[in-house]
């Protein structure tokens, strides 16, 4: 293989790889939304929810979760602020907003670009084309970074399991969806407070509900953009006067524990800056410290050379002095005396040289 051939092969390989990455970038999605056209979602209309806990019971049943201590007929538990856990993948909480009870169902929001998936270092979480965020426990290391990352405090962990503790969260009933069935909670809801459909349709449904009943809803679809958008979106009732509520949706959403400060970009993107610096540091640090090393070595070398030059000079000076002195002695006392002087001088030098050297 001659040089030209080699270079042309190298060049074409470069072009091919560049093209393939370009195509990949297009298909894999620059981070814009929606990531999966036609993915499913759920619209949770809290104005419809009556806090009957049928969704909790259905979730418990279809997912074969352990039976709770208090039965699902006991509606008083809604009053205590609960969160999802490994045993309860969904809970309904009662919030009292301006004196009126509002019920909200909590479960995994199935983000469009989930923070848990960005955080997982063993690739357990995957956003699926059907809209669900799937978790594969077989490769879970149990580090629980997903739970740190989740802005909604959703995943739960089986702390009491010694040998196969896993992260647990709502699966969007992906196995049921594959069979063509609706998720358990949605089927159970007697009020259609949970509306199942294509996410893109649900946004329109939400808007049309707002339009049809002015003043009923907060003018904010929670999850449309929050944290980069979620598959499960929530409508909240407007409280009090319409004018005050529309001024700041957070005012009505915060009492429902809906955090409006998450921003409209995927949470995982917050770490991309730091991760992006990694290759830069890998590339630059060795050069920087290699350079520093070279500088310090050069400095040492110069220092050493200077020291030697000084030592040589001193030696020359001394030998000049000794010689001059010996010549003088030879003139006055004869050559034997001069030799004695030379001998004495070199002995004296030897004694003082040793500490100089070490």
């Amino acid at each position, binding site marked *: 293989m001659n040089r030209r051939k080699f270079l042309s092969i190298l060049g074409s390989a470069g072009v091919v790889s560049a093209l393939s990455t370009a195509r990949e970038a297009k298909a894999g999605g620059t981070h814009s939304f929606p990531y999966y056209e036609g993915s499913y979602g759920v619209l949770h209309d809290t104005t419809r929810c009556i806090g009957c806990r049928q969704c909790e019971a259905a979730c418990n049943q279809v997912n074969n979760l352990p039976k709770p201590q208090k039965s699902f007929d006991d509606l008083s538990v809604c009053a205590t602020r609960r969160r999802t856990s490994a045993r309860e993948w969904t809970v309904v909480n009662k919030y009292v907003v301006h004196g009126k009870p509002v019920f909200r169902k909590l479960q995994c929001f199935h983000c469009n670009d989930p923070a848990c998936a960005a955080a997982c270092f063993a690739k357990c979480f995957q956003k699926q084309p059907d809209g669900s965020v799937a978790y594969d426990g077989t490769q879970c290391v149990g580090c629980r970074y997903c739970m740190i990352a989740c802005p909604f405090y959703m995943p739960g962990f089986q702390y009491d399991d010694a040998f196969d503790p896993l992260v647990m969260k709502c699966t969007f009933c992906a196995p049921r969806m594959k069979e063509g069935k609706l998720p358990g909670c949605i089927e159970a809801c007697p009020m259609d407070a949970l509306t199942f459909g294509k996410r893109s349709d649900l946004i329109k*449904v939400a808007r049309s509900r707002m339009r049809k009943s002015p003043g009923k809803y907060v003018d904010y679809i929670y999850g449309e953009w929050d944290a980069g958008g979620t598959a499960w979106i929530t409508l909240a009732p407007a409280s009090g006067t319409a004018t005050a509520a529309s001024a700041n949706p957070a005012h009505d959403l915060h009492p429902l524990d809906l955090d409006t400060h998450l921003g409209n970009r995927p949470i995982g993107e917050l770490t991309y800056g730091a991760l992006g610096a990694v290759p830069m540091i890998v590339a630059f640090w060795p050069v920087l410290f290699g350079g520093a090393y070279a500088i310090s070595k050069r400095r040492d070398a110069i220092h050493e050379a200077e020291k030697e030059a000084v030592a040589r000079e001193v030696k020359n000076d001394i030998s000049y002095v000794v010689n001059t002195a010996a010549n003088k002695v030879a003139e006055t006392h004869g050559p034997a005396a001069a030799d004695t002087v030379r001998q004495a001088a070199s002995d004296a030098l030897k004694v003082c040289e040793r500490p100089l050297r070490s």
Partner: protein
Amino acid sequence: MRNGTTLLLLAAVAMLSAACLTTREALAAPAQEVVDYNVSPTRIIFPVGEKPNSAGVGMRPTVFNHLVHEKKIDNCLSCHHTGETKACTTCHTMEGKAEGNFITLTKAMHTPVVAKRPKGEPTPQSCVSCHQQQLAQRECAGCHSIVSVAHATRKTSYCAPCHNMTPSITKAQMQQGSAGVLPDKDKVALAAETMSAQKSVSHLTPEDGPYKVYIGEIADKFESNLFAHRRHVESIMEKLKDNKLAQAFHTQPETLCATCHHNAPLSATPPKCGSCHKSTIDPNQPERTSLKAAYHLQCMSCHRAMQVARPIDTSCVTCHKPRAPQRTD
């Protein structure tokens, strides 16, 4: 009286009138004089504009029964917010004028929510905003928490009850009306003709509907529900018997049915709920609720808005007899 809202409303009205009487005597005095009509109890509101209306076209004028409205309202300032008894079109024209703060006639009449004025100034009402507020009354709230008559969702049939000028109005009269120069005698004649043409609607009676309805298509955990259809209709009609607003706006014989029997053409024999609502949500039509939810949403929204204490939302057995657990033989 268990209706707190009404009590509150009454108190507010009383206080308002008291305030009006004491502080705005100057305004109240001429307002009372207006009761002496020398023309007719009705007014016609034309789409008055600055531009010459040579073609004589435009929105159908409204015949406004001043007397009926005046009796319902304690404070003239609600509409005559400037304190002067001028016609609305003096300041609010189709294009808007500086005197009217460039608020057009359309907006002045139809805006559903009027921004609160600063302290001391009365907040005016538009036709729509005032009517809308009436819907908060208990007898209206049931249906109207489900069927919104908000301006934003109006259909053409929504305009007709007010924009009711007789079709016999001539182009010349329309032209003059738009310019604000139609003689009073013409106005009287037009108004009289319009009023006489209006027929009172004879609504369907409770007896036209079924006595009881079995709802059992989706009976699973519970027995079929027996819905007392006639009793519900009777109770609503009884409440609306003397309600002039309802009489004016419920213009079709089947209007009252349309809250529950919605989305289909008005008819004495509407389609069954199950013909549209299926037992589960169709993901391709998420806006259409499932049958179970359709019933619950209708029943509960109405009961909640009418402040019917019974049943509690989550108490299934009030309406549904639990079905005995199925035996496995």
